[in-house]
């Protein structure tokens, strides 16, 4: 009917009246969402265009390898997979110690495409899975935001924000084949389903929520965030006196089904009933039963009696429950909070007690510019959006508030948890932005409807200016009736949004699109130079070593060696066995005479170190060396001491002033072996640490250099076999070099005149 009114006028009015039509609106929304999804996918393809379709970083290489195993061997084999090519000689029960969601998802997509006779390489599916899911995440953000407001523009804005915000892109560019790739979609969608279930009080939505929660558990360790947030939301609602039977239905359905679903994953297993992280959910479950029962009783008896009943019953049950929990924890039936969790409360905890957790860079506390870097203008719209939620304060708004509080806290504690904050920031910021746009573009001028896109705001303000000039005769021109203020705000918002888009593109292109397996640098003439040392060295390993040659390296490179070189490793990024990692750390940080027996015991054939001194690549092993020392010190405090690696003045040096322990450590020797020979005498320089090195390279006796990549980033050493004639390696090596045996000279003793 709106179309009929508008027909016959100017094209602009026709357009506007079209926009008011319900089906046109739906069509527009679908088109806009599709465009947002396309933008989300497209903005993540920088790395594919610049480099190639390649898996990034460290963990994705394991996921990729596991996916290949799944596709090749089938689901049941994958489920029972015992991997003897990692953690030599222990092996790893891989099938039972991973989150299979990611691999199963891409395996399913692979088989579906095969079924549709689309021949596609599994690698390409893995590379493009994260961008594809980011499109879905944008849609999930749209759905979640639509539950919060009646304004339809808020949802679309949230979808657009979610699609391109760098906080989420950081973990979902093409090639970043990690659990987070699908987990963020599942997180947002599970929250949407939870809100839906809570609003309708429906078992079906609760069951769907539980199913997606189960999928989330299968995909990412961060599921604990949902496990804690949903009970917290329920608890806050109860405390606010907002208990409703809808809450009871939604929560109990979600918990009963979701917990069972989560226990299906072998890696999670009995954890939901055994660890403290999951206890809040169980506690709220019991508490809700109690509250529901009390509600029933309250409806049955007069209020005076009810009070007595309440005090006696509730106090007793609460006390018994608390005592039971404490007793079970003390008795060892329920594990107390795990170390990773403690480090969320006390940021210094991990550094003291669990160096292996503290050594991971993404577990560090967030620096404050990171918030602006990752979220740009959303970070100042975010509090405004939360304030909007306070104004309305329905059950679902309480959820956003609780989520915002906890998300902010966790994002401040750990860099990586920025990822869980991003969805709520997008939702809240979209609520604030759409409120602003709605107020300034729509208030008292209902003819202007089409404010969904910021681009169209120019047109609409012109339109509204005509409108308000007509009305100015009857109404005083104040506040937002004013053309000027409308135009100003609309213009400013448009500008901010444009800057936001530009910032996101810039950050994505510059900060988050590097595969870190392949490095890029600029030549003096501005052309791009690709540094491909990692793949070069891994390829060398693959082609020149025995199928079962064991490679010892620091755990960061374990997954890459497994994935690219296909050789067994001692330790990898799974870090399930701290002692084993400490053993490698000890071997790296000890003298050769100590390290050699360790390597023999672990049947190490090759040792791989990463050295950035020549190129100025700062993420190398010497810079990580102190963590190796610390982790080794945690197990052998008598044999490895961090203090010994510093100069007497407490400096960490690699040049001539380095401490003796440092100079004799295997890592130092392997890094700088023969390095000085590259330079003219006296010119040897480490470009990462800016140190001038001594002319005399360290001497290696029990290892020999096997391979050094083009830019010296990767150096591989072969562990020598035992000497044929039973000498120790130092003696054998010095004999090789042509020195005389010192011992032999001593043995000869003073010369005596032969008298017969």
């Amino acid at each position, binding site marked *: 009917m709106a179309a009929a009114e508008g027909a016959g006028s100017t094209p602009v009015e026709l357009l506007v009246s079209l926009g008011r039509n319900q089906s046109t609106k739906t069509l527009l929304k679908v088109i806009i969402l599709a465009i947002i999804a396309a933008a989300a996918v497209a903005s993540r393809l920088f790395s594919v265009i610049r480099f190639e379709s390649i898996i990034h970083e460290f963990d994705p290489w394991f996921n990729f390898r596991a996916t290949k195993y799944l596709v090749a061997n089938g689901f049941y084999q994958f489920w029972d997979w015992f991997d003897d090519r990692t953690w030599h000689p222990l092996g790893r029960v891989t099938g039972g110690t991973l989150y299979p969601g990611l691999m199963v998802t891409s395996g399913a997509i692979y088989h579906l495409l095969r079924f549709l006779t689309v021949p596609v390489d599994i690698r390409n599916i893995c590379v493009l899975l994260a961008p594809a899911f980011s499109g879905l995440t944008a849609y999930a953000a749209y759905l979640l935001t639509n539950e919060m407001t009646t304004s339809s523009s808020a949802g679309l804005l949230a979808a657009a924000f979610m699609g391109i915000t760098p906080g989420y892109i950081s973990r979902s560019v093409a090639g970043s084949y990690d659990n987070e790739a699908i987990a963020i979609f599942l997180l947002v969608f599970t929250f949407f389903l939870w809100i839906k279930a809570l609003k309708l*009080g429906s078992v*079906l939505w609760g069951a769907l929520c539980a199913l997606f929660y189960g999928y989330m558990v299968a995909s990412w360790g961060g599921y604990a965030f949902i496990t804690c947030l949903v009970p917290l939301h329920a608890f806050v609602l109860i405390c606010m006196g907002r208990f409703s*039977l809808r809450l009871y*239905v939604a929560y109990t359905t979600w918990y009963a089904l979701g917990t069972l679903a989560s226990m299906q994953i072998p890696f999670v297993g*009995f954890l939901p009933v055994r660890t403290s992280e999951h206890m809040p959910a169980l506690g709220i479950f019991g508490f809700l039963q109690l509250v529901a029962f009390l509600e029933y009783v309250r409806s049955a008896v007069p209020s005076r009696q009810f009070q007595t009943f309440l005090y*006696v019953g509730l106090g007793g049950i609460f006390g018994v429950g608390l005592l039971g929990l404490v007793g079970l924890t003390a008795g060892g039936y329920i594990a107390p909070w795990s170390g990773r969790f403690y480090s969320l409360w006390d940021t210094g905890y991990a550094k003291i007690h669990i160096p292996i957790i503290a050594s991971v860079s993404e577990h560090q506390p967030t620096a404050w510019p990171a918030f602006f870097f990752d979220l740009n203008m959303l970070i100042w719209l975010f509090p405004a959006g939360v304030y909007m939620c306070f104004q309305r304060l329905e059950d679902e708004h309480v959820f956003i508030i609780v989520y915002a509080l906890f998300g902010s806290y966790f994002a401040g504690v750990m860099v990586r948890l920025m990822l869980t904050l991003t969805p709520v920031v997008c939702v809240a910021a979209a609520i604030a932005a759409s409120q602003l746009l709605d107020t300034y573009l729509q208030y008292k001028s209902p003819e202007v409807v089409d404010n969904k896109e910021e681009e169209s705001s120019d047109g609409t303000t012109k339109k509204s200016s005509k409108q308000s000039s007509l009305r100015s005769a009857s109404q005083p021109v104040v506040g937002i009736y004013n053309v000027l203020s409308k135009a100003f705000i609309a213009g400013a918002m448009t500008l901010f949004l444009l800057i936001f888009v530009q910032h996101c593109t810039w950050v994505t292109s510059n900060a988050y699109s590097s595969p870190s397996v392949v490095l890029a640098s600029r030549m003096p003439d501005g052309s791009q130079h690709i540094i491909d040392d990692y793949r070069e060295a891994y390829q060398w390993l693959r082609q020149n070593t025995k199928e079962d040659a064991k490679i010892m390296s620091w755990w960061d490179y374990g997954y890459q060696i497994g994935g690219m070189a296909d050789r067994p490793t001692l330790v990898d990024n799974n870090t399930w066995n701290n002692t084993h990692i400490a053993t490698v750390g000890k071997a790296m940080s000890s003298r050769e005479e100590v390290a050699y027996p360790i390597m023999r015991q672990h049947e190490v054939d090759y040792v791989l170190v990463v050295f950035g001194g020549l190129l100025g690549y700062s993420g190398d092993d010497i810079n990580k060396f102190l963590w190796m020392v610390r982790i080794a010190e945690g197990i052998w405090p008598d044999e490895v001491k961090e203090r010994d690696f510093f100069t007497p003045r407490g400096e960490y040096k690699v040049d001539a002033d380095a401490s003796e322990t440092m100079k004799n450590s295997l890592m130092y020797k392997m890094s700088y072996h023969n390095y000085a020979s590259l330079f003219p005498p006296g010119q040897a320089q480490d470009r990462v640490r800016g140190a001038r090195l001594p002319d005399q390279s360290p001497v290696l006796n029990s290892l020999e250099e096997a391979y050094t990549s083009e830019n010296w980033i990767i150096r591989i050493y072969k562990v020598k076999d035992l000497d044929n004639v039973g000498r120790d390696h130092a003696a054998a090596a010095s004999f090789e070099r042509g020195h005389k045996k010192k011992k032999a000279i001593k043995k000869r003793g003073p010369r005596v005149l032969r008298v017969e």
Partner: protein
Amino acid sequence: MAPKKPATAATTSASASSSSSGQIDKIALNIVQHYQKTTPQRTKLIDTFMAFLVIVGGLQFAYCVLAGNYPFNAFLSGFSATVGQFVLTASLRIQTTEANKSEFPSVSPERAFADYVVGSLILHFFCINFIN
């Protein structure tokens, strides 16, 4: 729930002034009376099933405490089957109760039952998968 309150209050107004020691059993008596008076036959059937589930769950728990939890999978799936079925049935009961109509405008009794069936199917699928 609100309209029921005056009726029950009228029947028990005399007991309100009695001493607190005897109050608890009076409260219990009140609840039972209220229950018998206001609950329809169908809901009572549901309640019987819930009581049965509580007994079965209690038995399993007692077995676990007394005889050990050796097949912990089996215990967990058995116990959570009863607990899950209990809360699903409770949800069904809540949704079909006449007094709660205003809370669930979009859930008709038929819809509630269909949801119940779907929820139970999912629950038992997981239980059977988990029981080993």
